[in-house]
């Protein structure tokens, strides 16, 4: 039965976007301070080299205040990926590096009175590179002739399994084998990385950062610089896109170091080539998949081996391999399955979180393999998926999946497939699509499914704190460590609290994360946790606040709690006086000596799966190899959408990233480790004319553990459109392209291979 909501699911308008249109919103690069200095990073031109820098000439430039190199900074190693202090990991990064391990590695900082002075100083640095052998690609990494860190380039290896795959494969009638690859992807937030650090009048360090986890930035900066955590204030600024790319501190330690050292505000704004080369990327993969099926089309066994290019620093070597692997056990019912993940160091941009965290890579290749499995038994790919997809799990707190991870919850993958194929007109298109073919153009359709999670529960600490208070002017103040990455997180929280308290969302203020004012949050705005975990916490805190408000009213007006109602910011008894929440707050303070306020530490109660299915139709030009996506339907199992406009925005934007991965996006290096795609002229994002209209369909069947039934949307949105496009291309051409992206060159090559 559907509940009627007052605010949940409604297209409430964001309050921050009008100023963004007017150009009034300030990003870090727009901020200024009296006496502010400008920092310019020197990043390495070489992929692997010992660096010696002569600062003499640079220091003589008028307006250059300081030049810092590795010799000037604390020699405390850290792992920038470590988002909470207790996470076990090796540490291999420094504020500035003496040995450059990839093109774009940070090796010096020039600080000037003006951007021009800093730039001039940068150009006057004399840099000597003592070059070391370079490790590019998996083959070189595995040779271990040159080891980038520790004793081997193998940075991480682990297997996950359920059942016994040899027994599973024995029961199979057919085994379908595929191999494939996915590239390094640049997040391509249009705002480049930036940071501003200053010292406040009380001697505290203040770091202004467009980040995803203020407490991670605090931890990394305090640790790397050896300064007190409690005197390290990190404030999340307006962010010009992140997608995981700004999730790991890059500039913050060096910017903070310069501000402390010079006791003046320092601002650093990166250029695009440094954002591509010197921050983080989606990890590239090479994969091998074997799937055993019966002649009736049931999957009985699967083995997935995926190798990850971790880049030059350890960062997320373990996390990405594990995040990828765990999802393999949550989409289809496969009794006997084994996954092995291995991450290697290479002299390329380090890996990091990137929208979907392992899911885009997993489904890129496995969903091609699933199509080939369906084909092998003559089954329709949608029907094959419906036959093998997981069913919703009965709601039991503490339920587990096949490998002992938290239960999958109300998994509506089959609804996505069934309702999606109807909305896409799959059955009809299947019959008619090839009739459009001409000598030059081939048409095809494709489907792909995918799964993602809701936070860290089951793997890492996943809790948050909420401080919610009724203000005297009938407004609500919510303090929690959230970071709006542009998706509308603030509005999502406003709508959740508004629903619980029955008050207009615009009357609720949810300032963003600040380590001095936000209560602690264990994991930040990442891992698809915010709506589910932070939203869950806020709903629970708001419900407790409501109880306190009702109790206070009953005491003040000497009535029973039963007939007290709260509607549209007004509380009253059916026979008594109606007062505003603000008036109740004033009376509670004056007469009951209490604040209408709740402080709640909330632990995530689960980590249900979320599912998506995309359907695509493509037109492939067999002469040029160019692909046009002419229809795209993205279906998401969303539990309960909090704001339909925001949800659609996530799915449409996710499709942009995923289709880009399928068709054109790829960070490329030559054998010496020189970056070949240092800007948008070479790294091809999809632009408006090439972007299809994305049709969206949300399955809203409620997740018992989510606030009002909600679960995650934004990361999953970037998972299935790409593989659906790839399957459509292969359908159109009769090829089996499984290396991403399907560039014109790859398509022409596959066609000529087929002809010969």
């Amino acid at each position, binding site marked *: 039965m559907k509940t009627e909501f007052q605010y949940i699911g409604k*297209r409430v308008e964001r309050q921050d976007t009008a100023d963004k*249109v007017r150009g009034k919103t300030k990003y870090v690069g727009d901020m200024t301070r009296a006496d502010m200095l400008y920092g310019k990073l020197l990043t390495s031109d070489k992929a692997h080299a010992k660096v010696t820098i002569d600062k003499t000439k640079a220091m003589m430039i008028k307006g250059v205040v300081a030049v810092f190199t590795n010799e000037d900074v604390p020699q405390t190693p850290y792992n920038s990926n470590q988002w909470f202090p207790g996470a076990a990991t090796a540490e291999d990064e420094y504020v500035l590096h003496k040995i450059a391990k990839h093109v774009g590695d940070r090796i010096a900082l020039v600080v000037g009175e003006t951007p021009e002075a800093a730039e001039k100083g940068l150009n006057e640095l004399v840099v000597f590179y003592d070059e070391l052998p370079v490790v590019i690609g998996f083959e070189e990494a595995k040779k271990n002739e040159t080891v980038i860190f520790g004793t081997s380039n193998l940075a991480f290896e682990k297997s996950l399994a359920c059942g016994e795959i040899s027994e599973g494969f024995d029961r199979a009638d057919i085994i379908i084998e595929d191999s494939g690859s996915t590239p390094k992807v640049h997040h391509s937030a*249009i705002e480049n990385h930036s940071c501003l650090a200053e010292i406040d009048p009380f001697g505290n360090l203040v770091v202004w950062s467009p980040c995803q986890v203020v407490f991670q930035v605090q931890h990394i900066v305090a640790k790397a610089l050896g300064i007190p955590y409690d005197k390290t204030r990190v404030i999340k600024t307006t962010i010009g*896109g992140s997608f995981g790319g700004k999730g790991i501190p890059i500039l913050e330690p060096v910017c903070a170091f310069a501000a402390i050292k010079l006791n003046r505000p320092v601002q650093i704004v990166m250029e*695009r080539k440094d954002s591509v080369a010197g921050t983080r990327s989606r990890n590239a993969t090479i994969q091998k998949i074997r799937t055993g099926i019966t002649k009736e089309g049931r999957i009985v066994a699967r083995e997935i081996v995926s190798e990850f290019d971790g880049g030059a620093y350890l960062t997320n070597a373990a996390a990405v391999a594990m995040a990828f692997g765990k999802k393999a056990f949550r989409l289809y019912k496969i009794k006997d399955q084994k996954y092995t993940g291995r991450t290697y160091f290479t002299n390329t941009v380090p890996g990091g979180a990137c929208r979907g965290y392992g899911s885009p890579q997993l489904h890129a290749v496995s969903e091609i393999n699933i199509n080939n499995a369906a084909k092998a038994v003559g089954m329709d790919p949608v029907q094959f998926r419906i036959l093998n997809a997981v069913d919703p799990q009965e709601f039991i707190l503490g339920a587990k999946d096949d490998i002992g991870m938290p239960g999958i919850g109300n998994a509506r993958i089959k609804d996505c497939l069934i309702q999606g194929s109807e909305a896409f007109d799959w059955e009809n298109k299947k019959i008619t699509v090839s009739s459009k073919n001409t000598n030059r153009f081939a048409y095809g359709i494709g489907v792909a499914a995918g799964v993602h999670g809701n936070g860290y529960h089951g793997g890492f600490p996943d809790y948050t704190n909420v401080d919610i208070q009724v203000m005297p002017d009938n407004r609500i103040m919510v303090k929690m460590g959230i970071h709006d*990455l542009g998706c509308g997180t603030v509005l999502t929280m406003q709508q959740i609290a508004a629903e619980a308290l029955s008050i207009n969302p615009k009357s609720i203020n949810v300032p963003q994360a600040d380590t001095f004012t936000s209560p602690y949050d264990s994991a930040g705005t990442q891992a698809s946790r915010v709506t589910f975990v932070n939203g869950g916490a806020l709903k629970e805190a708001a419900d407790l606040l409501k109880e306190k408000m009702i109790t206070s009213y009953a005491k003040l007006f000497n009535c029973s709690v039963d007939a007290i109602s709260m509607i549209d910011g007004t509380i009253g008894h059916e026979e008594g006086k109606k007062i505003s929440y603000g008036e109740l707050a004033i009376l509670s303070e004056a007469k009951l000596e209490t604040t209408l306020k709740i402080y709640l530490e909330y632990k995530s109660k689960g980590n249900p799966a979320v599912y998506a299915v995309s359907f695509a139709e493509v037109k492939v030009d067999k002469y040029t190899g160019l692909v046009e996506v002419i229809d795209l339907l993205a279906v998401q199992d969303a539990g309960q959408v909090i704001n339909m406009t925001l949800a659609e925005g996530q799915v449409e934007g996710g499709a942009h990233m995923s289709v880009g991965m399928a068709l054109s996006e790829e960070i490329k290096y030559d054998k010496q480790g020189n970056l070949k795609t240092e800007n948008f002229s070479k790294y091809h994002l999809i632009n408006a004319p090439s972007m299809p209209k994305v049709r969206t369909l949300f399955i809203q069947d409620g997740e018992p553990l989510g606030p009002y039934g909600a679960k995650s949307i934004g990361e999953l949105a970037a998972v299935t459109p790409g593989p659906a496009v790839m399957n459509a291309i292969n359908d159109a051409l009769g090829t089996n392209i499984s290396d991403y992206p399907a560039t014109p060159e790859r398509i022409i090559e596959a066609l000529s291979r087929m002809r010969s």
Partner: protein
Amino acid sequence: MEINAVINGEKVKVTCHPNKRLIDFLREDMGIISVKEGCGEGECGACTVLLDGKAVTSCTILTGQIDGCEIMTVEGLDKIGELEPITESFVRNGAVQCGYCTPGMVISTKALLNANPNPTEEEIKIAIEGNLCRCTGYNKIENAIKDLKVKES
């Protein structure tokens, strides 16, 4: 060199190195922060401004080139009351997420509508082909522009 230009409706007479990029001149000398840098090579469109009514990327124009010309940014459109319908449509359609590409996108929209008040879907797409957006997938931006067209026709 001495630059005489009309910037956001006001006559400006300043001395500036002619080789300074227009984006830097507008941001640093004029304090116009809506003009954003995303790539520095004219590929992303975040720094788009109107130069004599045409949309150009200010990172690939030198300040010397604007002598005797008129420059318009969203601040200027706001001042003359031409921004509000666009703001309203972008907000209502959910066309803004992180917002970093938005002022440039709005300028391309304005250039289109000035020249062609009734653009087709295709013409809308082509008008913003030089403006990259990573958040929205362009769908809602195109809807916002379409809504403006209906109003103006």
